């Protein structure tokens, strides 16, 4: 049996996982194996990749601002114009805590130079407040995924094949067996929810992380909504309207309950017809802030709770994993380690307590 070595295995299928894998290989000179599926063009989306999010922490806005520019430059080079589009998303809320959080988000966005305008009931319906964030960028997963796969190939990132097996050890190292070949991998990175759910045992499961049943519903073309991307703070519901007016809605809850909630939100029970739906588990952090770092301090690295902006953190995450992050990046990640005590975390973000 031949034996080789690799520095990292990145497990995950979202753009964040692909970007981190590619950046580790292309920028930081690491040998990388990527273990993820390419189904974005066929599977219903389980999230959005957006350059803005409901963020209240100033240090996160501060970190994100240059990362968005850096990531967009990279994505434009890899995927061209078809991989992204400019949108003006709306964040909105119905309950009092959500509305207060919206005010904080708006002020924070303005303070960091991001245009954020209030919109009210006329656009959103009675009892709802919202803000519109101008000039955000939405990544198109389906087309981006193809381009990123090609990019990974260019940078000699090895792809885990269907006949190959990957075993992740408790110390974070891993082993890939491919026929007569054995690859010893220095460090594993579980870069999305599916990877965490598949590879983290119950004994290792961090107390910070919670599994949450989530549903995606894709509707037939329906009425135009107030913005092509809308995020409801108090329910965690996300709406994305396609150019053909079909809406992809994602949010917590089982399929039937979520369908009822969506019907209410879209202006009356069953004012839409479902064109597709899927229920699945996601991983959320109990304080709504991202979680990074090694399981138990010694295991696989995890990336969780980044929300819609996850892909835009990829350059910083790659630097951090490669050990070349800036002082401020190191500080940001150090405050968000997965073994933090969420009860007294000073990084809790919007979503926690709403």
């Amino acid at each position, binding site marked *: 049996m031949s034996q080789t070595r690799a520095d990292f295995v990145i497990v995950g299928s979202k753009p964040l996982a692909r970007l981190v894998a590619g950046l580790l290989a292309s920028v930081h000179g690491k040998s990388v194996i990527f273990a993820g599926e390419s*189904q974005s063009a066929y599977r219903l989306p389980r999230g959005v990749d957006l350059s803005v999010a409901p963020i209240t922490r*100033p240090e996160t*806005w501060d970190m994100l601002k240059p990362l968005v520019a850096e990531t967009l430059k990279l994505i434009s080079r890899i995927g061209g114009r078809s991989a992204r589009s400019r949108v003006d998303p709306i964040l909105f809320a119905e309950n009092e805590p959500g509305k207060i959080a919206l005010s904080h988000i708006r*002020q924070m966005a303005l303070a960091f130079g991001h245009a954020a305008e209030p919109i009210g009931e006329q656009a959103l319906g009675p009892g709802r407040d919202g803000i519109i964030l101008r000039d955000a960028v939405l990544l198109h997963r389906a087309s981006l995924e193809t381009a990123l796969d090609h990019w990974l190939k260019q940078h000699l990132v090895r792809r885990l094949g269907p006949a190959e097996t990957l075993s992740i050890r408790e110390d974070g190292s891993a082993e890939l067996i491919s026929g007569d070949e054995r690859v010893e991998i220095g460090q594993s990175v579980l870069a999305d929810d599916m990877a965490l759910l598949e590879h983290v045992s119950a004994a290792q499961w961090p107390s910070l992380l919670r599994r949450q049943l989530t549903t995606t519903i894709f509707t037939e073309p329906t009425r135009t909504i107030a913005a092509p991307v809308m995020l409801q703070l108090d329910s965690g519901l996300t709406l994305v309207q396609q150019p053909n007016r079909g809406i992809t809605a994602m949010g917590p809850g089982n399929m039937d309950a979520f369908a*009822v909630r969506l019907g209410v939100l879209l202006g009356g029970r069953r004012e839409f017809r479902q064109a597709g739906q899927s*229920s699945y588990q996601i991983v959320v952090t109990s304080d709504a802030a991202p979680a990074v770092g090694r399981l138990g301090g010694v295991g696989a690295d995890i990336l969780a709770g980044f929300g819609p902006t996850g892909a835009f953190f990829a350059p910083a995450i790659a630097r951090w994993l490669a050990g070349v992050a800036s002082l401020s990046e190191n500080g940001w990640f150090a405050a968000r380690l997965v073994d933090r005590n969420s009860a007294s975390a000073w990084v809790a973000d919007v979503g*926690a307590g709403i």
Partner: protein
Amino acid sequence: MKLRSARLGADTKHLLQGSVINRSQPLQFRLDGRVIPGFAGDTLLSAVLSAGIDTAGKRGGVNLALTTRHAPAIVPATTRDPSLALPMDRTPATDGADYVTLAHQLSRSPLARLLRRETNSLHLDLDRPDPLTRPWLGMAGTPGPDADLVVIGGGVAGMSAAVAGAKNGLRVMLIEATPQLGGHARLFGTMDGEETPDQSIIRLSNAVAASSKITVLTSAEAFALRPGMVRLHQVHLLNGACTGRVLDIPAPRSILATGAFERLPVFAGNRLPGVVGALEAFELAQNYGVWPGRTAIVATSSSPAYRLAMLAQDAGIEVKRIIDARPQPQSRFVEFAKAYGITQAAGTVVANAAPAAGEYGVAITPQLAMEGLSTVDAPIAADRLIACGGWQPDLTLWHMAGGEGRWSAATSRLEPGIAPAGIVLAGSAAGWFSRRACLDSGGDAVDCLLDKPRMPLQDQLIDPLYETPDGAAPIGDLPDDSGHPAYLDGGHGYLVRPRTLPSRWPSWLPFAPKPPSWSLDYTPQPLDIAEVAAGVQLGAIPPASAGIVAHERVAMVGIAAGDEPSSASGGAAPLLSPYLEGRYHGARLFVVAPTEQRVLNVGALIHADPDETDPLMAIGVVVRLTDGASIALVAGTEGQTASVREPGRAFTIQLVVLYEDGMNLAAALGRGASTP
């Protein structure tokens, strides 16, 4: 245009006389004002088709056939209430009834409206969204009788499962969509040593009727399934009138014996009036004696279509040709058809179809399509084209309940994967081909649900040397700009294969238009399982993704009861939300007041220095406006002034007093009224 009756004669002995109609009991009813004759035992649809109406309406200017899977809902003409809508294929024809179609009619001139009563179309506008709406899909269910076991599908596998369940002491609810039990077994004939399909059906029907533990619901279509709950729509007679009801049947165990869809071969013109599937043609003829026209062509990739051709010939229909997509089909049915003198063409598909010259029928262009060979024959016309694209297990409810599927390259169809809790497949829905295996699978499904020891099942199939397995659904020419649409399936969806773009440049030139590439990923409509299967064959869905697509894109119907509580009931917000914790070292809550007439905004950042603009240098934030006062979280001291930066300019505030729960804010601000 005078309509021709499509009812086969009963003068000579043949098997397509209509086993469920009583020709001695004629009746008539009205549909959209037209008088439709029929017989007792007819459904509305069989009577309408027998009257020579074979067209539902127009889509994109092209007529589309009226079929069992593509028929409008109807409502009583007196009320026109959509909540009373009924399906044409499950509603028995009753004398004197008066219905109107629920779908929108094509706009026509008054003269054309007068003349339309003599045309073969229902004149529906099929370009509208959801043109053949089925309102019962959105209705809440009323609680129905509960059962220990629900069996969906009253064919031989379903009846077998129901009988086995009853023998095991379970209270069984057997749900059948059509007006009678029996299923589709009759089309597929008999193998040596087997009982005939009729013998199986009669034996099982008698056993079902004799069991006090089995409740049968016919004309009842299960349209939503979750583990533990089935929702169905049933048509039943109430005081002599047909009415519909939506029932929720709670049951801890379900067996899906929903059979198999017949795939629609994909070629231009595959949904024109006159084009029909082999199973639908057989059942219309066998049950109701309905067979439009006097001539037919059969295009198939499956041997039972040959049997239908022979039965039709026995009934006086001239079968002009059987074309088979399989290169060298072998079957006892093939040999029998040769003995009948029916012309056969192997390795041939329908390249395209168009309306025949004259009033009725279709003209097809056969195309020899064997490896390395592609030759187009001269068009041939017939009153009817029987187009059979093989069989796809009906996994619709399976997917709705959370079951998984996967593409089988060997059979070119989706097959079941991991099962949802408490739900088991039986019969051809489970992938079985032979009637013996379908019968056995019913009992096996019950054993599986009851965790009893199971015997391995086996499909007893004739050696492929003598019985060629079904081929993949035939695929015709890529439709061009001038041809008719090529649909992926014949149901309520209207997905079409993209057309080639007209070009005056040879295709090898770099700037010539490329063949259309397409994907079904963001098609904003549910995908029937047959559409997914066609999508795989046409390269629009990778085989590895077919199971996911079929599972996620099934036409799901929600069955949650009641409205979700609004998220507006979120309660009061704490002054210090978790996302504010630790933001400003040593910060406390203060009642603050602007030194000028301003209203502060929640979230506004507070700086020690009015010239400071860096949000990271803020010392506090406004957290609440209440009773006309502002409360802020600030790292500061009582009486201190600070600056609030809002769009446009900064202004000064004072930290008036430390905030305490329950304090009199107006008094704290030194004023009697609570206005800022």
